[in-house]
């Protein structure tokens, strides 16, 4: 199994190094405009609006080590949200009008307080309660086998990664054996009602390109995924979210090692879509890290770029202080404005 950048003691485990790479080279020489210059050209200025989505990263531990992971998650990562921080998150959830709660990781299910947190959070009556599950966790250990039933009991919206409907492409990105286990887990979810055409138990899949290229049309990809998964395996799901890989962490490592970094940045800049800027997720989302700090998005969290606000921790949450804050940007933000745009909920334009 691949090791995390942290475990490998890679240069890129240092977020300052990543930010240096993203700010120097073709951006410093002026060959490409910085993201700040580009959004200024199209008359945009990114500021936080009213909070709609609270995304909580409950830990970087994962049973997989995917080659493109922006979290640099893996079995060797020990950062895990404590019950105390979870309680602070719950206090905020109870007092906001956010319509979506989005739990992510790592594999969020590996946090020892995960089930308690889901049980408590589901009582708040939030409209859309998402858990980003990597699927294979359901088969990783006996104690996880009942996750589909647990999700159903708490009306959790399951969002799972699936880079392709074939084994080769999936295992190459997510690790040997991941495809077959993912198929098995999807069948377990279907069996309790998830993803079925008339079911309220939402099951959506996330497609990340398995290489140095941008995703194609989300609707066309969804059609291909649905046909292939139904014909080959009898699996059903609701929607496919096409998400662009942002040039950070392990995907940045891959881009540099494969000498694709500059071409990829050119592709992102060329595909810049002003219409996507208006709907980027950072303007209505707040990302909470395992230790309770606040970020504009999960990507900024992984680059250790905290919110530009006096309220920096979930325990200091203050809507008035956070609303209207300037979003912290760097060149990785081009990933969310390329083509039809990209967010944790798929395309935005």
């Amino acid at each position, binding site marked *: 199994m691949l090791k995390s950048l942290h475990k490998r003691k890679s240069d890129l485990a240092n977020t300052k190094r990543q930010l240096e790479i993203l700010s120097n080279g073709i951006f410093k020489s002026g060959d490409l405009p910085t993201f700040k210059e580009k959004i200024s050209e199209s008359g945009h200025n990114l500021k936080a609006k009213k909070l709609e989505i609270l995304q909580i990263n409950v830990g970087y531990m994962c049973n997989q080590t995917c080659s493109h992971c922006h979290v640099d998650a893996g079995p060797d990562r020990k950062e895990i949200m404590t019950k105390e921080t979870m309680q602070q998150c719950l206090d905020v959830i109870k007092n906001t009008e956010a319509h979506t709660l989005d739990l992510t990781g790592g594999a969020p299910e590996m946090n020892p307080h995960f089930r308690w947190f889901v049980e408590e959070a589901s009582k708040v009556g939030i409209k859309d309660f998402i858990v980003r599950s990597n699927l294979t966790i359901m088969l990783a250990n006996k104690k996880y086998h009942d996750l589909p039933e647990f999700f159903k009991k708490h009306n959790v919206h399951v969002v799972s990664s699936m880079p*392709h*409907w*074939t084994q*080769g*492409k999936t295992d190459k990105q997510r690790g040997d054996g991941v495809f077959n286990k993912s198929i098995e887990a999807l069948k377990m979810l279907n069996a309790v009602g998830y993803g079925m055409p008339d079911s309220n138990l939402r099951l959506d899949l996330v*497609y990340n*390109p398995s*290489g140095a*290229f*941008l*995703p*194609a*049309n989300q609707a*066309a*990809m969804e059609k*291909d*995924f649905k046909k292939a998964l139904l014909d080959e395996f009898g699996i059903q799901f609701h929607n496919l979210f096409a998400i662009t890989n942002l040039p950070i962490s392990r995907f940045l490592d891959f881009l540099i090692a494969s000498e694709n970094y500059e071409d990829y940045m*050119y592709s992102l800049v*060329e595909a810049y879509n002003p219409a996507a800027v208006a709907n980027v997720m950072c303007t209505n989302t707040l990302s909470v890290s395992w230790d309770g700090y606040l970020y504009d998005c999960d990507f900024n969290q992984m680059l250790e770029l905290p919110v530009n606000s006096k309220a920096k921790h979930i325990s200091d949450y203050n809507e008035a202080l956070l609303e209207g804050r300037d979003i912290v940007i760097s060149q990785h933000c081009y990933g969310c404005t390329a083509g039809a745009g990209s967010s944790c909920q798929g395309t935005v334009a």
Partner: protein
Amino acid sequence: MQKTYYDPADLKKFGKISEWNEELGAKFFDYYGKVFEEGALTEREKSLIALAVSHTIQCPYCIDAYTGDGLQRGITKEEMMEALHVAAAIRGGASLVHGVQMMNKVNKLDQ
């Protein structure tokens, strides 16, 4: 003189063709865009056809463009290679079928 006849960076300049004849350039790119829209064939099927034709006409720009396009659309390397073999079979067959003409000539001239 430049070192090679083909420069990968030139592919990005394709649109500049219109600068020297705006009317015909615009007509061409309109037509090109329309051709690749979903119709009786899906965009995915059209991408595979384009990849096969790219190899038949041995256009390095087109090969780069439609390999990338295929990957974006989730086309697998197995599907790409099969498409190429279709192109190769037709191209090889086109040479070989002329063998009938050769055979006709030999049969006519030979005693």
